[in-house]
Each structure stands twice: as structure tokens, then as C-alpha cells.
């Protein structure tokens, strides 16, 4: 598809989109540098985490031999690592875009960066060395059942990682909200004046509205994580106190669901803010429909998480059905507003397709295709056969890898290109996008197909009943190698621009 959307193979100068800011002088230079450091850290970790995924598929394909402990350590690190890097990249990018309108704190962002680095080290130590292998969701009470696999220090390191990252990211979220509220009140940032028809159109950009919705949800998610960690600590430290497994499950899935969804929204906010300029059209504005859609998302994203608990039959039936209804409805504003907006911007635009705009456009497509797979799985009678099969990683890898990751890769490339001023190679951009897209959808198709054929997720090796899973994993490996090649080419191009920007700056 992308081959059809490129009109020329010129090597134009990058367009300048991001660099305008409310910050001045040295503070602005520092903020820009810090954003680049955040993005580069996330991007540098990306291929490493892809390789962990490749190794896991290698084990499932019966090509690589590794202990189950190592497989599940990779699984835990891959899951938390991927969600973590795209969250921080999304937040860092959002911070830069926010700085066009409001003033996020530079000092706080710097502090959060160092705290995050400490947390990452703790996570790596806990999983790879300590073999704390509970999966990303450390589902209660598994962390309290280490058998002989991990030692108490590894549990401690893992919960220290959670606490440090949790506190740091909560402060980051609060700071962004503070920055927004200091210029617009939160009511205005949520476009309630438009929603309740006091004004026809808000001067709050849609990006600010989306970020406000995301940040409020993130705070609620982090609050759930705080309660969860406190309850774990209470049980570990006191004798005789036992937690309620259903409550703990609700808390962890609420937290995880919200974190993943808002990371998606951070990518969407970037697209809202930047895609119109690529399409050579005016900025999007916050009208009633946009306000209604994102306020509905604020409500629905917090209710949809019930779909993670369908197979807990003791959960009240009303909540289960509410989960299905909310999961369907949450796709409606996304489809009706965001996706139509992006399509209408591209249609008849005669735009020059550059790497960032291609990745934004395809990222929105991945969001839609993955979202549809999520809606299918959020149907209770379907989930009865799909829950914890490979259909689940199939759908979330679609809107993650082919969705928000594409969007953030587009954003980071645009940023580095602007800073460096280096010309863009449109032909390379087209081939790189094609490579990433073919790799992603080939890899994803094996997850979908395996899920539809009853292959479970989170299996180090497949038992005879689901031996077909090994064949699907073998095919997936070919496509992961394509993705990896694409990521390396991307990083080379991104890195060249970063080096150029820095050397130009130092001279």
C-alpha cells in the first residue's frame, strides 16, 4: 500500500513541525536534549527486546533449546520492557509537544529519567539474574510462590522496580497535568465548554484534550498499582493476612489495561498534532464531536478492563456484560473521530509521503485492525475460546507494534530529522516502511492463526496437543528477522541524524 502513496523519490529538507516551544534560551535547549535522550534510550532498548521476542519464538519453534526459567525470564522482561519503553517514549514525546503550549518541568523530567534508569536496572537484575519470572502481571499470589526458582532478593528487586518506576511516572503524570491546568483549567482541557455547548469550538488543541484524558486515566491506573503493591507488602510482612485473589486480579488488570491504552493514546496525540502539517492542511481543532469522543473514551477505557476477567466466573455477571458493552463502545469514538480525521486529511491532499507520515498513517491503520481483533476477543462467548491463547498477543501486538510503535517511530524520526536538518531520502523511507509493515503483519498473522487454532500463549514449549504452534512460530521467525532488519536500518538513519544534530550543535 505504501508503495502507492509515495509520489516522488526526491530528497527534500525535513519540514519543521516540532521545534516551536514556550520555553526559552538554555531551558529550551536542555529540554530538547533531554527529549532526545529519552527517545534514544527507548529506541536503543527496542531491538534488544525484539531479540528477546525472537529467542522466545525460537524456543516455541523447537529451534532453540533454553530452560523454561530463561524463557519465562525473557517473557517477563520483554513484556514489561516493551510497555515501559513505549510509555516513556510516548510521555517524552508528549512532553515536547506539550511544551509548544505549556511549560512542563525540565528538572522533574530529568529526575524521572534517572529514576527510570535505576528501575530498568532493577528489572533486568530481577528477571535475568534473579529469575523472577512471574510474567508482566505478577499475578497474585504467584510472586509469593517462588518455589526454588527465585530468591526473596529477586522479589524485592522486582517490587523496588515497580515502586520506583510507579512513583516516578506518577510524578511525571502529575507534572504534565499541572502544566496543562496552569494554562487551561482541567475542565477546559477536557473541552467541557465545547461538550456542554457553551462555546462552539475550543482553543484547546485536540492533542491537549487527548493528553488530559490519558494522564487522568494514567493516574487512576497508577493508583491501582499503589494499592496492589501495598496489599502485596501487607501480606508479605504480616502473618495471617491473606489477600483476595479476585480483588488483586481486578487491580492488576485495571493498571495494565489503562497503561497500555494510554500509551496508545500518547501516539494518537502525536498524530493529531503533527499529521495535518504533513498533509499540508491546517491544524485540527476541538469541536463538539472531538470533545464528545475523547470524554467518552475517558469513561469507557476505564470500564472496558473488565474484559480481562471474563474467565473469572465469580466476578459479578453484570460487570462481565458491562465489560463487553464498554469494549465495543470504546472503539466507536476512535473510529468515528480519529480514524476518519486522519483519512480525511490524507484524502486528496497531494501530500509528499515521508517516513514519519507513512508511519503515522499505517500506525492508525494498525490501531484499527488490532482494535477490531480486541473487540472480537472482548465478546464473552469468543473469549471463552480465545482467552490466553495466542489471539491475545496477536491483537495487542497489532495495535502496539503496528500501531503505537509505528507512530512513535514516526515521531522520533521527525524530531531527529528536524534537529539535524539533514535531507530525507523518500525512497529509503518507502522501503523501510514496507519492510517494517511486511515484517509486522507477517509476524502478527502467525499469532492470529495460532490463536484461532487453540495454541496457548505463554508456553515455553508446546505439548503434543498443540504441536502446530511450533510450525507457526517457525514462520513468525522469518518475519521477526525482517522487523529486526527494518529496526536496525531505522536506528542507523535516526542515529545519523542525532549525531549530525549534536556535532552541528557542538561546532
Amino acid at each position, binding site marked *: 500500500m505504501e508503495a502507492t502513496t509515495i509520489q516522488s523519490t526526491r530528497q527534500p529538507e525535513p519540514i519543521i513541525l516540532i521545534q516551536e516551544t514556550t520555553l526559552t534560551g538554555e531551558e529550551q535547549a536542555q529540554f530538547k536534549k533531554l527529549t532526545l535522550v529519552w527517545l534514544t534510550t527507548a529506541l536503543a532498548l527496542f531491538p534488544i527486546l525484539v531479540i528477546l521476542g525472537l529467542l522466545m519464538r525460537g524456543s516455541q519453534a523447537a529451534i532453540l533449546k533454553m530452560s523454561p526459567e530463561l524463557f519465562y525470564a525473557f517473557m517477563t522482561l520483554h513484556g514489561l520492557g516493551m510497555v515501559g519503553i513505549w510509555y516513556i517514549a510516548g510521555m517524552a514525546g508528549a512532553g515536547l509537544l506539550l511544551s509548544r503550549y505549556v511549560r512542563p518541568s525540565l528538572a522533574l523530567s530529568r529526575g524521572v529519567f534517572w529514576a527510570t534508569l535505576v528501575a530498568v536496572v532493577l528489572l533486568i537484575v530481577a528477571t535475568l539474574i534473579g529469575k523472577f519470572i512471574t510474567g508482566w502481571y505478577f499475578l497474585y499470589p504467584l510472586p509469593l*510462590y517462588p518455589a526454588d526458582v527465585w530468591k526473596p532478593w529477586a522479589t524485592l528487586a522486582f517490587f523496588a522496580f515497580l515502586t520506583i518506576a510507579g512513583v516516578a511516572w506518577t510524578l511525571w503524570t502529575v507534572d504534565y497535568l499541572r502544566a496543562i491546568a496552569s494554562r487551561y483549567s482541567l475542565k477546559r482541557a477536557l473541552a467541557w465548554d465545547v461538550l456542554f455547548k457553551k462555546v462552539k469550538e475550543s482553543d484547546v488543541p485536540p492533542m491537549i484534550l487527548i493528553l488530559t484524558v490519558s494522564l487522568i486515566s494514567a493516574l487512576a491506573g497508577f493508583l491501582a498499582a499503589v494499592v496492589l503493591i501495598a496489599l502485596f507488602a501487607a501480606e508479605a510482612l504480616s502473618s495471617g493476612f491473606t489477600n483476595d*485473589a479476585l480483588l488483586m486480579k481486578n487491580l492488576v488488570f485495571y493498571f495494565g489495561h489503562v497503561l497500555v491504552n494510554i500509551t496508545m493514546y500518547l501516539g494518537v496525540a502525536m498524530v493529531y498534532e503533527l499529521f495535518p502539517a504533513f498533509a499540508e492542511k491546517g491544524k485540527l481543532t476541538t469541536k463538539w464531536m472531538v470533545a464528545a469522543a475523547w470524554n467518552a473514551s475517558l469513561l469507557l477505557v476505564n470500564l472496558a478492563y473488565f474484559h480481562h476477567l471474563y474467565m473469572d466466573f465469580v466476578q459479578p455477571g453484570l460487570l462481565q456484560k458491562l465489560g463487553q458493552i464498554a469494549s465495543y463502545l470504546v472503539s466507536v469514538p476512535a473510529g468515528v473521530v480519529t480514524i476518519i480525521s486522519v483519512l480525511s486529511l490524507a484524502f486528496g491532499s497531494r501530500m509528499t509521503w515521508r517516513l514519519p507520515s507513512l508511519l503515522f498513517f499505517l500506525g492508525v491503520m494498525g490501531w484499527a485492525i488490532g482494535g477490531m481483533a480486541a473487540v472480537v476477543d472482548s465478546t464473552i462467548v469468543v473469549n471463552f475460546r480465545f482467552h490466553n491463547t495466542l489471539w491475545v498477543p496477536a491483537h495487542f501486538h497489532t495495535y502496539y507494534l503496528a500501531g503505537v510503535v509505528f507512530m512513535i517511530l514516526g515521531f522520533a524520526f521527525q524530531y531527529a530529522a528536524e534537529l539535524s536538518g539533514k535531507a530525507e531520502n523518500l525512497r529509503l523511507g518507502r522501503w523501510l516502511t514496507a519492510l517494517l509493515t511486511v515484517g509486522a503483519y507477517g509476524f502478527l498473522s502467525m499469532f492470529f492463526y495460532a490463536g484461532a487454532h*487453540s495454541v496457548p500463549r505463554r508456553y515455553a514449549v508446546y505439548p503434543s496437543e498443540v504441536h502446530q504452534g511450533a510450525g507457526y512460530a517457525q514462520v513468525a521467525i522469518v518475519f521477526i528477522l525482517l522487523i529486526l532488519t527494518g529496526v536496525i536500518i531505522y536506528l542507523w538513519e535516526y542515529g545519523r541524524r542525532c549525531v549530525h544534530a549534536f556535532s552541528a550543535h557542538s561546532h
Partner: protein
Amino acid sequence: MPVQQIAFLVWLLFAIIIAAVFGIIGWRSRQKVDVSPARVNRFRILLLVILLVLSVIFWAYTLPKVPYPTEARQPDMVVFVTGKQFNFGIATHPMPTEKEWEEVVNFGEPVVLPRNKLIEFRVTSLDVNHGFSLYDPDHLLIGQVQAMPGYMNRLRYRFTKPGEYTVLCLEYCGNGHHRMRGAFTVQ
């Protein structure tokens, strides 16, 4: 046709439509065309109506079929299932202690279930969360429920196909998760 295949085909249909729309719009970005906001809004309203109508149809079709047990009907037979790292104890009597669970796992008689009767599995766990899943003789996943410590989940199923059924664990439960299993026969 199994539910999985129907779901896969429904998704594939939507995925192809979405990809085609993006492809066509991408292609049409090559020519300059002015699109009025009113026309875009008409598309929005059309899509809104389509999505809502489709949602209501899917809800009406699927929500009455949820697998949750109701008190209105009593099961014909009750089977007790207890998960513990890394095995499922399956018996016609409860296993509230580790000792009883071990007896069932190591020395228990294989459970044989009748066809066309409503069977209720009462599923729990002695340690962490497990996923009690039913794989039919053709290794098709036909249903599942969580095995949770401190809770008893009730899964009802009417088997029509005779043969050996396999139980795999569908909730990650530790380093032996992939080898955790159980079995029963339907005659």
C-alpha cells in the same frame, strides 16, 4: 463451524476492509481533491450508525449465550477440579487439602463423564491462579475457566463428542506452566 473460525473470519473481513480503505485513501492522496467538512461529517455519522447497529446486533446475538452458570437449572453431574503447581486434580469428590489433591493426582481413578449430560466443573486452586481449559479429542479448545485460590468457579458443559479430553493450564503459573495438565474421558 467452531467459534474460533467464525471469530477469525469476522476479524479478517474487518481487517481487509480497514486495509482496503487505508489503501484507497492513500492512493487517492496523489490527486488534489477538496473535501468539505460537511462531507466528512456525513461519513462520520454514517460510520457511527454502522458501528452502533453492528454492536447492538453482536450484543443481541452473543450476550444471551455467555457461559456463566445460572441457578435456574441444576447440573446432572458435578466434577471437582483443583489446580496446584503443576497438575490438575480431577475427581468426583472435593480435594480441600494438599494430601487429598496428591492422592487424586497420583492414585485417583480416571474420571469418566457421560455424553449429553450437563456437567458442572467446580474449579479452584490450592496455590496460584491456573487456567482450567477443555481440549476436545481433536485438540480444539472448547472452553475454559480460571482456577483461583479462595474461590470456586463453576464451569458447565454438555459434551457431545466421546473420547479423551485434555486439560491444559491457560493461566501462567510458573516455570512448569506449559507441562501442567489433566485428562478425563467422555463416553
